[in-house]
C-alpha cells in the first residue's frame, strides 16, 4: 500500500474527494490556536501563521489546497507565498451565485490535482459520520454534551483527523453529561483563535449551542462529484450575505438562542459584516475581536461576563 499523500486545506474543501483520491486531508488551521508563533508579515493571523509554517517547512505536507474564491482573499495571497516556496498548491474557488455546474468543474480540477478517484466508497462512510455529527450537535443543544467537547469534534469535520477510523474513535469517546442551559449562545463568524474559548464561555455560564462555521463542515456531503457539487454550492460563507443570514435565522430559531457572540478576526473582511448581522439578526449580540492565538484574553472575558449579565437582565 503506497504512503498516503498528506494534503493541507485552508478552509472547507470536500474531504469526500480527498479521501476518495486516497489522500489524507489536514486542515492547517487546526495548529493555529495552540501556536506560539508571531508571524513577521501579517494581516489575519490565521493565514499568516500557516503560511509561515508551511513556507519554513515547520508543517510537513505534500501539497496545499487554498480556498480562495468565495472565502478569504488573505488566503489567496498567503497561499501564493506557499506556492512560491515550492509546495505544490491548488486554488479552489466556490461560486458566489451557488452555480453547481461551476462548482462541479472546480471539483474535477481538484481531482486532477489530487490524482484519480480510487476509493469512491469513502464518500458514503463520511456521510454516515456527518449524520452522527449532526446528532452530536443536536444533543449539545439539548444540554447532553459539553460545548467545548462538541466543538472540538465539529471543527475536525473539515479533515476528519486525516483518518476515518481515528475520527470515529474520537467521536465514540464523547461522554454524555448534563449541562445546565442558562444562556444559549450562537457563535457566528470564523471560530475564535483562542484554544480555550468554549470552556471559558461555559465557565462564565454561556453555553455555546451553535458554531456557525464548524456546522458548515458537517452540513454538506455527497456520494460523487455531481451530488457533492449540488450540496457544497450552498456553503454559506461563500454565498451572498442575505443567503447566509436566512440560513442563520432558521438555525438560531431552531436552537432557541438567547444571544449571539460574533467573533471577528483582526484584518478579516468578516469584520465589515458586523453591522449587517446586528441589523438583520434580532438577538442581543456581542462582537469580539481577536488577533493572535493563545488563551482567551482577560478583556474578552470581561465582555463575555458583561454579556452574560446583559442576558440575565433581558
Amino acid at each position, binding site marked *: 500500500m503506497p504512503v498516503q499523500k498528506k494534503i493541507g486545506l485552508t478552509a472547507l474543501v470536500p474531504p469526500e474527494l480527498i479521501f476518495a483520491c486516497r489522500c489524507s486531508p489536514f486542515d492547517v488551521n487546526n495548529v493555529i490556536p495552540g501556536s506560539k508563533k508571531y508571524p513577521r508579515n501579517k494581516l489575519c493571523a490565521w493565514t499568516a501563521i500557516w503560511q509561515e509554517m508551511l513556507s519554513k517547512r515547520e508543517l510537513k505536507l505534500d501539497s496545499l489546497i487554498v480556498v480562495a474564491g468565495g472565502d478569504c482573499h488573505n488566503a489567496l495571497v498567503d497561499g501564493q507565498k506557499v506556492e512560491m516556496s515550492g509546495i505544490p498548491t491548488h486554488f479552489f474557488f466556490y461560486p458566489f451565485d451557488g452555480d453547481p455546474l461551476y462548482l462541479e468543474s472546480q471539483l474535477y480540477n481538484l481531482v486532477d490535482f489530487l490524482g484519480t478517484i480510487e476509493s469512491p466508497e469513502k464518500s458514503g462512510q463520511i456521510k454516515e459520520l456527518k449524520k452522527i455529527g449532526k446528532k452530536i450537535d443536536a444533543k449539545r443543544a439539548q444540554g447532553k454534551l459539553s460545548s467545548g467537547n462538541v466543538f472540538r469534534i465539529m471543527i475536525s469535520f473539515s479533515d476528519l483527523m486525516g483518518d476515518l477510523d481515528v475520527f470515529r474513535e474520537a467521536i465514540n469517546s464523547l461522554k454524555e453529561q448534563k449541562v445546565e442551559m442558562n444562556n444559549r449562545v450562537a457563535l457566528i463568524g470564523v471560530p475564535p483563535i483562542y484554544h480555550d474559548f468554549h470552556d471559558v464561555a461555559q465557565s462564565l455560564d454561556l453555553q455555546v449551542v451553535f458554531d456557525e462555521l464548524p456546522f458548515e463542515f458537517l452540513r454538506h456531503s455527497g456520494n460523487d462529484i455531481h451530488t457533492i457539487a449540488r450540496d457544497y454550492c450552498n456553503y454559506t460563507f461563500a454565498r451572498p450575505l442575505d443567503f447566509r443570514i436566512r440560513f442563520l435565522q432558521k438555525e438560531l430559531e431552531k436552537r432557541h438562542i438567547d444571544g449571539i457572540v460574533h467573533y471577528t478576526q483582526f484584518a478579516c473582511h468578516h469584520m465589515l459584516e458586523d453591522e449587517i448581522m446586528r441589523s438583520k439578526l434580532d438577538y442581543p449580540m456581542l*462582537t469580539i475581536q481577536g488577533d493572535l492565538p493563545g488563551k482567551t484574553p482577560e*478583556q474578552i472575558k*470581561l465582555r463575555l461576563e*458583561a454579556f452574560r*449579565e446583559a442576558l440575565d*437582565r433581558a
Partner: protein
Amino acid sequence: MIGLDVGSTTAKKVSIEDGEIKYQITGTHNWKDLITGIDGNDIISTGYFRNSVPHCASVTEITAAIYGVRYYFPDVDVIVDIGGQDTKVIDVKKNNFIINDKCSAGTGAFLEFVANYFKIELKELGSFHSRAKRIPAINNTCAVFALSEMISQLVAGFTPEEVIAGMHYAFARRISFMIPGARTLVLIGGTVKNKGMLSALEDILQTEIQVPDEPQIVNALGALKYYY
C-alpha cells in the same frame, strides 16, 4: 454595605447613609485604605480588579455603569464611559455595548500623553481648550501619529491652546463613531471632567450630553445598586 470600584488608575468607595451618597476616591494601589475595618461580606466590587479585592459579590463595570447612571438619569439611552485604558459605549435600551481598547487614541491614556507633552496637568486641558481662538484639524486616528500632527500644527503657528482644542476634536470624533443616536446621552469616567473634550463631543454629535455630579463614582454606586 459598600460599592467598591477598583479601576486601572483610581479606586472608589460608595455607601448610602440615610439616603445620602458618601464616597471616597484614591489611587488604584491604595484601594486597601478604602476598606479598612470593612468586612468582605459587606463589599460589592466592580472594575478591573473586582475579583482581586475582598467582596461578597462582583459585577462587571458595564453592568455597574448602567445601574449607577440610572440612579441619576432613569431615562438614559446611551452611556459613554471614557476610562483610563478604554472607552465603553453602552446602549442601555438595546442592551448592547462596544468597548474600544485596541488603541489608546480614544482613551484617557491619550489625554494624559498629550498633557505630559505640554508639561501641564491633565485637569488643565479643559481650560487651555477654552482659550483657543482657532481649532486646527488633527486627522490622525493613531495616538502617536496624532502627536506628530500636533507638533506640525505648532510649527505652523497654532498656539498650544488651539492645538489642544484640535486634539479634543480628534478625540471626540474618534469615539463618536462608536456612539448610536440617543435622546439621553450620559458621559461618565474621570475624563469627562475635561470640559474641552465634553464640548467637542457635544459639537460633533449635536446632542446635549448629561454628566452626573460625580462621574467617577458612578460604577461604585452602580455595583451597590445592582444588588440593593
